[in-house]
């Protein structure tokens, strides 16, 4: 990577090469990124952007922190963990400003409400944050945690549900897995974790290297230009979801082309940010970080100001 040869936002000729490391393979969450790329907004901003799928969702924090990669897409919980571990990253904008992770069950399951989780078997994707979500949800809804059986099923959340191997799952996204279930005619119950007691957080955020951002004006410019272009991409998605669905279909190889538009449709409303594209609420971050600290997800407490900033976002 390396965007050191910075030029003006509309700098003639030479585009600044920028690699953005995604959190996962291309999927509907990334619709704004791909729309901005394919519509040429990055080029207009003087950037030659490569959107790179990672080997593991934890790659972006690590590689952005080491400066190997210019920018990354990560999650708010992971960004807080990175901050707590002393990684050199900071969230510079919310790509998906709200939580997507949900408690899910198929219509056939006996779980329809949080209260039904008592005595249920619940699958997670194996992340410690998801375990903590579940603990918090059960506690705040007065469900006996001891009665719930947890299973780590990794990628196989959908399979675990549709086969009836578990009663419910925690970890699926409401704009992806939930849509898939609905498309299969399984009439899913979907409860976003933030509606069941978990403090609100941004599912996907853009992260940058914090120290370089403080010291390198060219990098500051690059981040600003990137977020500006991304903002335009986001706006384009909101304006024309059908076109956005076509764009993402070209890169989301493994998705059913028939269902993908529905997923994009489910995603679009979640991309709206009342405070303006990318804006993040430092207070919300702080309470989320405090919650994580209370749940022992992080050892050292984190100050929101160290891990999040709105300073590089375009004016709304």
């Amino acid at each position, binding site marked *: 990577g390396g965007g050191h040869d910075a030029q003006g936002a509309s700098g003639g000729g030479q585009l600044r090469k920028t690699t953005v490391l995604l959190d996962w393979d291309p999927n509907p969450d990334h619709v704004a990124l791909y729309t901005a790329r394919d519509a040429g907004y990055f080029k207009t901003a003087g950037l030659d952007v490569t959107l790179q799928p*990672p*080997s593991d969702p934890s790659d972006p924090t690590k590689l952005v922190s080491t400066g190997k990669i210019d920018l990354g897409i990560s999650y708010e919980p992971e960004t807080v963990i990175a901050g707590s571990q002393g990684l050199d990253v900071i969230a510079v904008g919310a790509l998906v400003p709200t939580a997507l992770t949900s408690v899910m069950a198929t219509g056939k399951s006996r779980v329809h409400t949080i209260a039904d989780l008592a005595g249920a078997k619940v699958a997670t994707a194996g992340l410690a944050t998801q375990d903590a979500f579940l603990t918090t949800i059960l506690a705040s809804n007065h469900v006996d945690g001891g009665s719930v059986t947890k299973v780590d099923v990794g990628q196989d959340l959908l*399979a675990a549900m549709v086969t009836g191997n578990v009663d419910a799952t925690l970890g699926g996204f409401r704009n992806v897995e939930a849509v898939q279930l609905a498309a299969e005619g399984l009439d899913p119950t979907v409860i976003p974790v933030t509606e069941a007691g978990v403090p609100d957080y941004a599912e996907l955020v853009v992260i940058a290297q914090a120290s370089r951002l403080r010291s390198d004006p060219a990098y500051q410019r690059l981040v600003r230009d990137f977020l500006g272009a991304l903002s335009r991409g986001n706006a384009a998605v909101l304006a024309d979801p059908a076109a956005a669905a076509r764009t993402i279909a070209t890169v989301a190889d*493994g998705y059913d082309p028939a269902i993908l538009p529905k997923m994009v449709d489910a995603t679009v409303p979640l991309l709206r940010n009342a405070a303006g594209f990318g804006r993040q609420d430092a207070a919300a971050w702080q309470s989320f970080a405090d919650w994580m600290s209370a749940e022992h997800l992080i050892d050292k407490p984190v100050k929101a100001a160290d891990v999040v900033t709105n300073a590089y976002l375009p004016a709304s």
Partner: protein
Amino acid sequence: MTPRPTSRRGAWGVRRWGPPTVVLVAIAAAWELATAVLGVEDYILPAPSAVAHALVDRWDSTLASATWVTLTEVVAGFAIAVGAGLLIACALHFSRTARSALYPWLIGSQTVPVVVIAPVLAIIFGYSLTPKLILVALLCFFPIVVATLDGLSAVDDDLRRMMRTLYGTRWSIFWRVELPAALPSLFTGLRLSAAYASTAAVFGEYSGSSDGLGHVMRQAVPQLQSALVFAAIALLSAMSVALFVLVTALETALVGWAHEGKSTNR
């Protein structure tokens, strides 16, 4: 008058397509029937017809380019694995100290999961073709090393002694006795590696890729696009089987002395 027994390995190596085809058709038919009769949902176990449909349907848009990408990784990675495996096996064979010092590390190298290696490779090489080749090579060199070493150390010592009385240097003994004698073992290792190469490429693509059959599968699996997943698997299997058959054909050509019409009157 009675037919003389033909070579075993040669026989099932390349020419005999009959039985596997029969079994293929039989399994596909039974499977199709089972999914239809039992009403198994497509997203759990797609019927062969659905897989075939996905194979055709998604070929142009998705599978063709993915297959090409993966095939490149498989072939190049396998080639590197063969070279590295032979080199390492020979080095360990020639130095007893190296063997006892490094062997545990080779075994250890097979226990480090891809999720751990992949980011490290990404840091060093970026998200290019290189880390995929390295992963394929890493997963495929090991059977070659183990099998070749076992073959080399199982050589009849009397042959070595005989050569030593005939001006046989360490090198000429290796070249004219040990290596030919170890060829069957080497091919056991190659066959195993060939079978693993395509899975290894899928792992490689898990290390950050934007195309390839592994990439397609990684997206399709969580989405229960089972027909597409099975189509990708069918392509991967075909690659491995093809590589396996190729290796076996090469063996038949090179190690004919060990297998063809061994039956003599003595």
